[in-house]
């Protein structure tokens, strides 16, 4: 098992390299002079030339990549020209907030999605199933950024139950209850779509599993129906749902861009939007790279959990 996990970790390394290639390639595709694009329209020609030299842009593309990769290993992602600070510092500062938001949303959508999916399957064609199916359909069709606005209107502006934006109160905040208070609405909004996807899949997986021979065996043994559903069927269904939760991590991390903007959450997502608008390309590059790496790790975690559950994979 430990050997397997080590193997999975090793297998993640080429994927991470692939990410760096894509990120690098996208930036290399910038039309026109990249240094000009990075420095903006008001850069002096001397600065543009200096950056071209610094970035090694006069060298062949492959060489450029390895220089860039070498810098990356030393923690050098370049400087943000808007903030005039190292990209890595800014990104790491922001990453924490994104991780808290996306992590909470991921836990929420897994728990809610699994529960809703199981109820839906067990009460197939009953009113609970119909209600869940309909709510799920709404959940995967609703624009999360709009839902966030609605929740702010209802729960922050009208009811005043939750703050409308930010991560901590400006005055006297900073502790965990304060964080949770701020976290609730954005995390919930971010979880909605993924909850719908997971609930749908769990329902199908449960219905599929409940027709399997080993379920009939469990019934033939005289196991209670409760145990048949919540122990035998659920565990088997979980094995098919876990990888999808890993994939949903990508949608949650990506969706954080909208939610962080709507709730002014100080994470990488909102940073990226600003950076794109101001054409702060090195900051965009660093942010994208870090979030994509986080996604790879989330998927890795899902893989490991699945291996723990399913002995056939070991």
């Amino acid at each position, binding site marked *: 098992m430990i050997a397997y996990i080590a193997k999975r970790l090793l297998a993640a390394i080429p994927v991470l390299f692939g990410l760096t290639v*894509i990120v690098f390639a996208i930036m290399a595709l910038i039309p026109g002079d990249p240094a000009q694009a990075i420095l903006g329209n008001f850069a002096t020609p001397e600065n543009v030339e200096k950056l071209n030299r610094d970035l090694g842009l006069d060298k062949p593309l492959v060489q450029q990549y390895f220089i860039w990769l070498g810098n990356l290993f030393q923690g050098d992602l370049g400087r943000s020209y808007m903030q005039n600070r190292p990209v890595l510092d800014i990104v790491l500062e922001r990453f924490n907030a994104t991780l808290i938001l996306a992590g909470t949303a991921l836990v929420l959508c897994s728990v809610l999605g699994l529960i809703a999916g199981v109820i839906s399957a067990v009460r197939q064609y009953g009113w609970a199933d119909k209600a869940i199916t309909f709510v799920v359909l709404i959940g995967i069709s609703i624009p999360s*950024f709009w839902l966030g606005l609605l929740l702010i209107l209802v729960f922050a502006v009208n009811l005043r139950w939750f703050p409308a934006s930010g991560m901590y109160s400006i005055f006297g905040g900073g502790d965990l209850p304060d964080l949770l208070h701020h976290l609730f609405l954005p995390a919930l909004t971010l979880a909605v779509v993924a909850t719908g996807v997971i609930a*749908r899949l769990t329902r199908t997986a449960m219905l599929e599993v409940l027709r*399997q021979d080993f379920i009939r*065996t469990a019934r033939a043994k005289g196991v209670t129906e409760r145990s048949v559903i919540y122990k035998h069927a659920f565990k088997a269904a979980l094995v098919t749902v876990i990888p999808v939760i890993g994939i949903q991590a990508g949608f949650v991390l990506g969706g954080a861009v909208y939610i962080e903007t709507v709730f002014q959450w100080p994470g990488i997502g909102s940073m990226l*939007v600003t950076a794109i608008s101001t054409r702060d390309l090195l900051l965009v590059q660093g942010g994208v790279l870090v979030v994509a790496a986080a996604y790879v790790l989330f998927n890795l975690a899902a893989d490991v959990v699945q291996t723990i559950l399913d002995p056939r994979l070991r």
Partner: protein
Amino acid sequence: MTAVESAPIQPARKASGRPSATRLLLNNTLATGGLVVLAAIVLIALAAPILPLADPNVTAPANRLLRPLSEGHLLGTDALGRDILSRLIWGTRVSLLVGISATLIAAFFGSLIGLVAGYAGGRIDTVLMRGIDMVMAFPYILLALAIVAVLGPGLLNALYAIAIVNIPFFARNIRGITLGLARREFVDAARLSGKSNAQILFIEVLPNVLPVIVITMSTTVGWMILETAGLSFLGLGAQPPQADLGSMLGDGRKILFTAPHVSIIPGLMIFVLVMSINLLGDGVRDVLDPRLKSGALSRPVARTAVTRQGLVPDAAPDPAAVLDVRELRTEFHIGGEVFKAVGGVDMRVGKGECLGIVGESGSGKSVSAMSIMGLVPTPPGRITGGVALLEGEDLFSASDERIRQLRGSAVSHVFQDPLSTLHPLFTVGDQLVEAIRAHEPVAKSAARRKAEELLRTVRIPNPAERLKAYPHELSGGMRQRVCIAMALAHDAKVIIADEPTTALDVTVQAQVLSLLDTLRAERDTGVLFITHDFGVVSAICDRVAVMYAGQFVETGTTEQILSSPAHPYTAKLIDCVPVLGEPDRRLDAIEGRPPMVNDLPKGCAFAPRCPRARDTCRAAPIGLTELGDGRTVRCLYPLTEDGDE
């Protein structure tokens, strides 16, 4: 050539007797609702230039932020005094156009990659798919953001970004289907006829892949509209003065607290649009790919439904029988049709006796056996008649809880394929312990000791170690021994064994059979043994019932039936058994097929395949005739009477 061209697989929906795709779609209320709403939105958006709308871009500072239902502005005005209704309709036009264009672009390039990768295979496939995998390693929206960052904000760039990040979905789906098709006969035939690869790909393969492309489009177009709107909302898509629904929402957000309608209305529009597309998309998917239809998977309930109509047979139990089943009828109700899988069957199993039920697949032998403890899946199965008496207790009228108590204790089961019948994710030990503790309130450690003892009983070497094994770590024979051990957990009075040796190697078969036989003798357990194999019957069964089309056609002792079969069907079945050392013996496959049990003939069900059938056989139902010595046969002209004629 023409034969080749007509050869491509016919989509399932064209099969006769099934309603057309459009009809099926309209039968789905939600999909129809989605279609109606979507059609309305599209029509209104298309008609925008001829509708009496205010100019969407004319500002009127005096009229800014009017509420909905204001004079002359049905949905109010925005921060610049522009008419929201007009902007909404024009914005919807843009959003629809962008979303659909992005879908078409993604579908075109994704399908092309998928087709080429799946058809070419080998290195091209590997390279293309590795690339796709790498793109998919990115969080979807993030990749779109990176692309917009490079191309610069703008509606067209947002469109490209969303299209690019959706290419992998198409590539993957299409490749999977193409891979399967590329190895099909009609592709080989086309290749032999000298067609070029491109011709084959686009003339032979593409039409068969089209439904999948349509499904993928219908399930992703909603997403793409949502995501392009999202980019516009972030200010990275449509730039003023151009407006789509997303940028309207983004503009309105700045004045959310003072004039919420400015952002709520375009958001609602996106929601309704995407929802209607998703409803329709689900409907299209269900029609084009029935396998994916979630509704097709009905959850079997814990116990077969019992709806006995008419007379419940006289329930005076046979004192000699442990299990006494009379007039059992089990039906499957599927889509308005009734399949009479079991049409009145009597089974009697005495103490320590083994009754074999023999028949072809589909004869109803397994369903008969599974009906006893209510293990036939409902839906679609239901027991519609008869009684099953376990030591005098009517199982069909017992409570669910009572049935649960009897399952695995008084009546236990051994099933066919031990790999699929054991839970793959629990150890053998856990599954045995569970079987023990289901009916015996003992501590886990005690149950584990008993489990070990059971494994020893079924001659599994090193039982303490084997308890920790998962089913996939054992051989087929070992697994079946585990299943038998499970069936022995509670001194069962009857073991129902449904083809327990069919999935095993011949040598292992013999071992498992002799094990079952020994245990039966030691424990005096009755066995109901289902098989299609007369060789197996002779090894273990005391009496045999031959089943055909849901009824017993002949019963008797094993010896009687094997040495002098009375029913022509029995004789044919016995002739099918290969005999070791007689390779030249031609195995007489029985011509024809068993009748469908939803359309049984009036008379003898075997008559159409029977060489001895006469008109009288087809005229009326044929009853079981006593032949003496407890033998019965359902035949007007049994083989045993040949000597008398």
